[in-house]
């Protein structure tokens, strides 16, 4: 009897719950996820605000000149960030020029051409490259890469292209080109693995369409895979660029750390991230610290700007293809 009664009670409560199910879990989950999502935004705004506060005096003192002058003299409290901005942009550009073709070609090899047994090991190896600590890569850069570059590829480049301003002048070793190359090594894994995922998401039906017309492997990869994946690959490049702009340790170790703007890529340079890493401990005066904060703000601004531009570009590509797709 008691058992029957408790079952009946349970039944009533189940019925009651089903009649008006509690939405508490749903609501809690919604608020929780919203809070998490907002936290990221708040964090970004806070960082920007902090950098702004930290550099407000410098901003007031140097104004726009900070961005367009080249003197970096902490003793005389003269600060101009142009060489660092230049160094960051140029080294990142070099890195992209090297890493993008290499990364996309590797991804295309991995998804379209490589024999099955080689795909997984090769992918793991490439991803392992991303796991190498930046400082180790920097050490390798100093002791292995730079001596090699100085002895073989650099003189060769100079012989071939020495007539252009980019490859003229003496070869020291640590230089803008070495910095760009080390960044290329660092962003190669991300560009490769993102590109690989994007190429893998191209429907097989597209490949079959090309092969069915008698396309060779290269032709099918070109007309069916790469052109289908264009937009996604652009995203992979931007992701790589984002990494390249902020890359610090390894670059600092090979770029030469000289704030100058020189056409020759054999000359040393300096990046925003490198000057921050190198000089924060020695910033003794308030204005010096303020200037370094402003460097941080500039780097922060450049990365955000690049990402915004990229998204804008992607959206225009998307909308044009969308309007084209309207019947």
């Amino acid at each position: 009897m008691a058992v029957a009664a408790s079952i009946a009670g349970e039944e009533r409560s189940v019925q009651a719950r089903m009649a008006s199910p509690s939405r508490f879990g749903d609501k809690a989950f919604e608020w929780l996820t919203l809070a998490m999502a907002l936290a990221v935004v708040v964090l970004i705004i806070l960082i920007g605000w902090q950098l702004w506060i930290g550099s407000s005096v410098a901003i007031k003192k140097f104004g726009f000149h900070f961005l367009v002058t080249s003197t970096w003299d902490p003793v005389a409290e003269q600060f101009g960030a142009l060489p660092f901005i230049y160094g960051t942009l140029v080294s990142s550009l070099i890195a992209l020029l090297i890493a993008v073709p290499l990364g996309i070609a590797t991804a295309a090899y991995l998804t379209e051409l490589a024999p099955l047994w080689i795909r997984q090991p090769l992918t793991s190896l490439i991803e392992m490259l991303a796991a190498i600590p930046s400082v180790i890569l920097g050490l390798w850069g100093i002791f292995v890469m730079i001596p090699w570059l100085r002895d073989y590829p650099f003189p060769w480049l100079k012989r071939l292209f020495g007539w252009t301003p980019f490859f003229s002048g003496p070869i020291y070793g640590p230089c803008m080109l070495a910095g760009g190359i080390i960044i290329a090594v660092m962003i190669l894994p991300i560009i490769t693995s993102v590109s690989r995922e994007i190429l893998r998401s191209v429907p097989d039906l597209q490949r079959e369409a090309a092969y069915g017309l008698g396309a060779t492997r290269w032709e099918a990869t070109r007309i069916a895979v790469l052109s289908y994946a264009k937009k996604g690959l652009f995203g992979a490049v931007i992701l790589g660029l984002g990494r390249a702009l902020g890359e610090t340790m390894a670059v600092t170790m090979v770029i030469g750390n000289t704030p100058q703007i020189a056409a020759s890529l054999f000359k040393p340079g300096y990046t925003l991230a490198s000057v921050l890493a190198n000089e924060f401990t020695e910033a003794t005066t308030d204005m010096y610290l303020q200037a370094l904060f402003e460097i941080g703000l500039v780097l922060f601004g450049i990365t955000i700007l690049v990402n915004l531009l990229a998204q804008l570009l992607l959206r225009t590509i998307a909308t044009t293809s969308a309007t084209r797709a309207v019947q």
Partner: protein
Amino acid sequence: MDHLVMETPERTVMERMEQGTAPPPEAETPAACTFEVKNLSIWYGEKRAIDNVTLGVASNAVTAIIGPSGCGKSTFLRALNRMHELTPRTRMEGTVLLNGDDLYSSTTDPAIVRRRVGMIFQKSNPFPTMTIGENVVIGLRLNGVRNQKFLNERLEKSLRMAALWDEVKDDLHKPGTSLSGGQQQRLCIARALAVEPEVILMDEPCSALDPIATAKIEELIHELKAKYTIVTVTHNMQQAGRISDYTAFMYLGRLIEFGPTTKIFTNPTEKQTEDYITGRFG
């Protein structure tokens, strides 16, 4: 089941064509054969997908391959232009002759095979980054054709043959994916026709289409028969009955029965064929 080409039948295909709507052929075996498949077996890894199939595909006729899911009919179709080789770990035995040429000889380039044997897929697959016009002539471009006048002529001819010209002639610059599903499938047919293949393979070409679009494709298949040999895979037995001259019934990788469609559908020799056609299994 020795449905090989043997002797010259009384009436040739051409004669039948001249009589207008080709009456169902009386001969058990096709007249002139475009494909001669002998003892074809195909493995995916350890799994045997096609088991010792021998059959001849008649020229200028529609051959339908029917059978329950997983019977190997798609694999068989793909073996006719070496498309199955795109799947890793496949192995084949036997011979496939296309108008007398061994498709699997060591010196044959699969890309060349696929230029001679066009293919239409289950879902339409125009290249989304190309316009309607570019989609049609891409096969010719891959073959190195650069003459714009020739490309334009072939573009119009192919679209007309695919019964799409009147619908798209003013929109050739629009993307191929802007068309409706049925139009996209006809665009893919035009794309295949543009390279003037010897055979067209169709892998359930109507399975993603509504009845009206299906009717259009079926009509098109009927018209294309005059110039091309067509092999089609279909799930839809009514469709096989409507469009094909010959029907092959496959089950578990084996060819159970092959013959004129009217015979297969009205008077099958094998019990399994009868069971499948009457809907007792499959």
